[in-house]
Each structure stands twice: as C-alpha cells, then as structure tokens.
C-alpha cells in the first residue's frame, strides 16, 4: 500500500541560519523530499550598477568592495582591470605582482570561509569554521597592514595600487605562507575522510559537465564538475602567465568534489604567492593617471578568476568622467542558476549542503 502524502510549501529564508545572507528558497516538500524549489533573491539589492553610472571611475572602486564582501580585493582587481583596458593605462610591474599576491590571499580567505561554512552546513558543530576563521584572521591582518581595512579594502587603484606595502609586510607574509600548507593539511585531516561527511556529500547534488557549461557556471562549481577552466590559465591577466600552478578539478560534480577543489585551490594559491614573493620587483606601484579620467568612447570587459568564479566588469564609456554603463557579471548569481536542478529529489538536509557547496555571497547576487 502506498501512503498518500500531500506536499507542502516551506519558506527557507530570507532570515535562516544557512542561507548565507538574505536569500529565500520557496521550497515544496513532500515529507523530507524536496519536490520543487524556487529561489527568490533581491533582498540585498542596492542598485550598485545604477549608482556607479553617476560617479567617477575612481569613486566606483569602493562600490566593488561591497559586492562579494568576502573577496573585496578580487572585486577591486576585476574593476580596475576593466578601466585600465578601457583607458589604455598599463600598471607598473610591481603593482601587478602586489595585485596577484592580494588576489591569491583573498582567494585563500574566501575559500577558508567557503569550506568552513560548508562543513558547518553539514552539521559539524562550528569546529571547522572556527579553525578556518583563525587562519583567515591572519590574512585580514596582512590586508590591514597594506590597506588599513579588514573587510572593504579599497586597495587597488586605476593604474596600480593605492600604496606600496609597508616593510613589515613581506616578513609577515613569508611567515604566513610557510605555515599555511601545514594548516591546510591539518584542517583537511579533520573531516576529509570522515565517513559521515562522505555519506552526506558524495554523490549528492550532482551537476553534470554539460549542465555546468550550459548555465555558464564558473569557479569551483564548474571545476568540481570536471571542466578544466580557469581564467588564470585560459585567458591570463596581470602576471599570472609567469607562475606555475595546477588547476584542480573534480570528476563527479557532487558536493564533495566542490569541497575538494576548494581545498586543492588553497594549496595552489599558496604556491602562487610563494613564487610572486620571490619574483617581486622593485619600482613604482602606481602609474600616473589623470584625476578626472575621461576614457575614450568605447567598451571594455575585464575579467578575473575570483574565488567564486569568473568575475567580470563590462564598462561602456561615452568619454565623460562616469561610466555610461557599468555591468557586473557576478559568479555567485550564475552559479546559483543551477540550484533547482541540483536540489530537486534530494532531502531537506541535502538542500542545505548543496546550497552551501555552491558558495554564494548575497552582496554579489543582488548587487
């Protein structure tokens, strides 16, 4: 005999401990099983794209801090690269190296949060994320040294970075970089082979290769599905073509693969920072840029491999001091489009970890 059941609708969010911000999932459940899901976002919409059209190119840099607030440096970098492309301003070499160091440190910080929050969603009561936060603190200390800020750094400038690194920065960075691989191993050992974690995340929330490409997913979500695509290698920007590093990929495209890809990427980031530190040249950190920048009429798209995926800024200039159009290609939003396909058919508990494994930041989704 089959028991007749009736599906019911439950609102997960906008204020829920596991929605990583103000995100709402209108979920239809049949018992524990998710039969339908409708993502609703926009609770954090601040109209950054429109606001940016009223401000000068330099004034827009702090706006980019507030997109993915867990990866401000990467946002800065993508934006200033787009402006430099538009205006044809090359940055000095030392500045490019500093940008790479900052972007990779930022990737470490963002992935630490992503991995910690994912394990927390799996129900490992706060322990992993608190260990991860301890290491992230050290990265924030480094950022505070160079920019004076701990969350919204506003460090990059058009044609360089705002200021050169202080003299205590490099020794501190060296100490951090030497310690970090050990910490990554240690945290990996905490749960990587844990039977419960494997049971919870292996084979759960599979995103196939074709699906991932079709929704134009990027970052660890795409690589977890086995697509070897990384802007740092595919379309090298800044000085990334001078470093040796691997692109870790998964095979199954499940939550566990996405988690593994992030952990491996952290190891690669440490490798890049080490090389950049050794090669760091002396010299200027900021090109001469007119205060009121009038880029020629035209358009430019600057893209980087942000921690969460391909982050792009599309700028159109009408030769005024403000961009005519300022569009952000946010990886979180793109990756989120796979949510329904990944979740339907799984249970309520899986919903949370599948959502957590995408690693979104609502500041970026809603803008």
């Amino acid at each position, binding site marked *: 005999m089959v028991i007749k059941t009736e599906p019911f609708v439950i609102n997960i969010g906008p204020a829920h401990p596991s929605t990583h911000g103000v995100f709402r999932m209108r979920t239809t459940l049949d018992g524990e099983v998710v039969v339908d899901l409708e993502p609703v976002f926009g609770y954090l919409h601040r109209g950054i794209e429109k606001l940016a059209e009223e401000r000068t190119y330099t004034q827009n840099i702090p706006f980019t801090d507030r997109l993915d607030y867990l990866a401000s440096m990467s946002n800065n970098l993508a934006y200033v690269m787009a402006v430099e492309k538009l205006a044809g301003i090359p940055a000095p070499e030392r500045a490019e190296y500093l940008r790479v160091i900052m972007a990779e440190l930022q990737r470490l910080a963002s992935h630490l949060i992503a991995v910690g929050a994912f394990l927390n969603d*799996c*129900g490992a009561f706060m*322990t992993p994320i608190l260990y991860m936060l301890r290491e992230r603190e050290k990265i924030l200390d480094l950022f505070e040294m160079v920019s004076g800020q701990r969350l919204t750094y506003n460090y990059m400038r058009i044609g360089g970075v705002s200021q050169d690194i202080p003299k205590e920065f490099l020794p501190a960075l060296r100490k951090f970089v030497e310690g970090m691989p050990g910490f990554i191993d240690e945290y990996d050992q905490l749960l990587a082979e844990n039977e419960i974690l494997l049971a*919870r995340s292996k084979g759960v929330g599979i995103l196939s290769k074709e699906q991932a490409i079709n929704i134009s997913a990027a970052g660890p979500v795409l690589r977890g599905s086995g697509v070897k695509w990384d802007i740092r290698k595919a379309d090298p920007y800044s000085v990334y073509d001078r470093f040796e590093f691997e692109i870790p990929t998964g095979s199954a495209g499940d939550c566990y693969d996405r988690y593994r890809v992030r952990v491996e990427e952290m190891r690669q980031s440490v490798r890049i920072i080490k090389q950049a530190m050794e090669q760091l040249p002396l010299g200027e950190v900021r090109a001469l840029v007119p205060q009121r920048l009038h880029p020629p009429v035209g358009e430019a798209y600057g893209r980087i491999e942000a921690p969460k995926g391909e982050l792009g800024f599309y700028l159109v200039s009408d030769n005024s001091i403000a961009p005519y159009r300022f569009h952000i290609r946010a990886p979180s939003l793109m990756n989120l489009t796979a949510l329904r396909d990944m979740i*339907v058919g799984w249970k309520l*508990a899986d919903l*949370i970890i599948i959502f957590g494994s995408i690693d979104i930041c609502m500041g970026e989704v809603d803008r």
Partner: protein
Amino acid sequence: MSNLAPLPPDWPGGYWLHWGVFVIIILAFVLLTVLIFIWYERRGLGRFQARVGPNRAGPFGIFQSVADAVKILTKEDIVPAKGDKIVFWLAPVVAFVPVLMVFAVIPFQSGALLADLNVGILYVVAVSSVSVIGIFMAGWSSNNKYSLIGAMRTVAQVVSYEIPLGLAIIGVVLISGSLSLTEIVAAQNIPFILFQPLGFLIFLLASLAEINRAPFDVMEADSELVAGFHTEYSGMKFGLFFLAEYAEALVASAIIATLFLGGWRGGVLPPVLWFLIKVFGVFFLIFWIRSTVPRVRIDQIMGFAWKFLLPLALINMFITGIEVVLLPEALPWPIIFVNLAIAVILVVVWSKLFKLGGGRVEV
C-alpha cells in the same frame, strides 16, 4: 546481594522522610548538575574549537548558566496566535518530568537512591521514552512547519533507537542476573564495559540518538531547521526544554556510568565522587563527539539503527547468552579478550557490508 544497605534506611520518620529527602536531593542534583553541565560543555567546546568559551561571569565563567537562567526567566513569553495553546503549555512539562523521574532509580552510591526497584532498568527505558511525546506535542502545537518537521524526525528516530538500546541492556542484565540498578552495580567487580565492549558501543550510540545529541541531532539541526521543535518557544518554556535536553544527557551519562563503568564503585575516593567523575567523563565523551563529527541525515540515521545497530545488538545478546549459560564459571580475562575480539571483528565486517549514502528520490 546482602552487602547492600537496607532500603528504606532506618531513619527516624522512616519511609516518607526518605522519600522527601531524596526528592529534594534529586531535584537539587539535577538542576545544579545541568547548570554545571552547560558551563562544562561550553568551556569544553571552546577548547575544542580553539577559543576560550564563556569567561566573563564569575571565575572561569562558572556563573554563565546562572546569568542565562536569569535572562531566560525575564524574557517575554510568546504563544503562537494560531498554535494549540494548551498543548503548547503542556509540552515542556511532559518533556522534562520523565527525565527527572528516571533519577528515582539511579544509585548515587550503595543504598543512596529514591527507590530500589527490582525492575529498575526497565523503568528507566520505559519512563525516558515518554519525553518524546512532549517533543512531539511542542512540534505540533507550535503551528510551525520547521517545528513539525523536527518533531516528526525525533519521533521516528527515538522509536527506532529504543530497540537497539533495549537489546544492548539485555547483555548487561544477562551477566548481572538482575534488572535492579543497585544489583547491576554490585555485580560489577570488573566494569561491564570490558565484558560488553560491543554492548557499550551500541548503547552509547543509541543513547546519543535517544537524547538527540550530535551526530544524531536532526530534531534541532540548527543549520536546517532553525531550532527544530522549539523554534516558537521563548522564555522559561524554552528554558525547560533546554533543561530537559541537558538533563537527558545527564541521565544518559549516569546510566552508562551505572551499567558499564561500575557506577559508584572505584575505591579510595568516596563512592558518590566516583559516580560523579564517571558521569562527567561520559558527558565529556558526548560533547567531544558533538564537536567533531558532522550530522547524519535522517534516512541514514534510520538505516543505521535498523541495519547496523539492531543486528549487532541481537548478535551481542546471543553471544552473551551462550557465554552466561555454557561458561558461568569461566575466568573473566579470557572472556574479556574473546568479547573484545568479537566486537572488533563484527564492527569491521558490518561497516564493510553497510553503507550510508544515496538517498535521491525521483520526483
């Protein structure tokens, strides 16, 4: 067992005085130990998680629970407008009282207990399973979908884990030859954890599920269900649930200490102190597990109970029965090693056969 103190003790006033004194002792013991447990767990978790834990209220933050209790008492008491009000009021009481009642039969030391029932352990199992009704009442009456899901999960889980829990106890009962907790302790010249390693493991895991502790804490599952069945509760009604949760942990620790670790026995130190040391030790193990492992999904929890714990508990009961019937006078040490070997082999074999995972449903 003639070496036990006669019950009730020959105090002036006799029977009723004994009852009155022990009711007060048990109430004070439970409330005080729960307050200490909360502090102990939070400090312990703090150490596990590379932080300090509460350290503001009093030395080492020892009065943190007191401060929390004062805060909880002064909070506004909200009843959901569309909730079932009577059931909503009754639920915390139904959840808390059975937990308190279990302590009636737990011996703090020889003769120091409210009532030495000759079916003590049966009484524990029976009474402690009542509190799940309170949890279900809370989930139902809150008129909240999260609460209801949490409560449904709890009922399914607790009912399933009663069975391996009961079967694991049978091993102990077979060896000691009595259902009375006092006599079970008196029979433990060697703690039963050595005779019953597999039974201990099953009992520990099943009682973790019974008291809804990590990794089986799906009824609260803060990352999924906000707060599970007590989402809508505030003020002292929430406080009572919180109290019940820790009191359940205390019961589980006390029962494990009594059945498997030799209860009050230990020598040198006063018996009550031994009992407390064992209780706190078991509780340490419980929150150590909590701070380490992720949560198991509800269908995996059910699979674990029926496919892993239940067969092992049956085999354990069978083997213990054979040993007790055929080798009643055998030396303890060979039996201990044989049982340990059997336990290791069975757990390894079963974990190869049994796999968690899967769970996708076509819709």
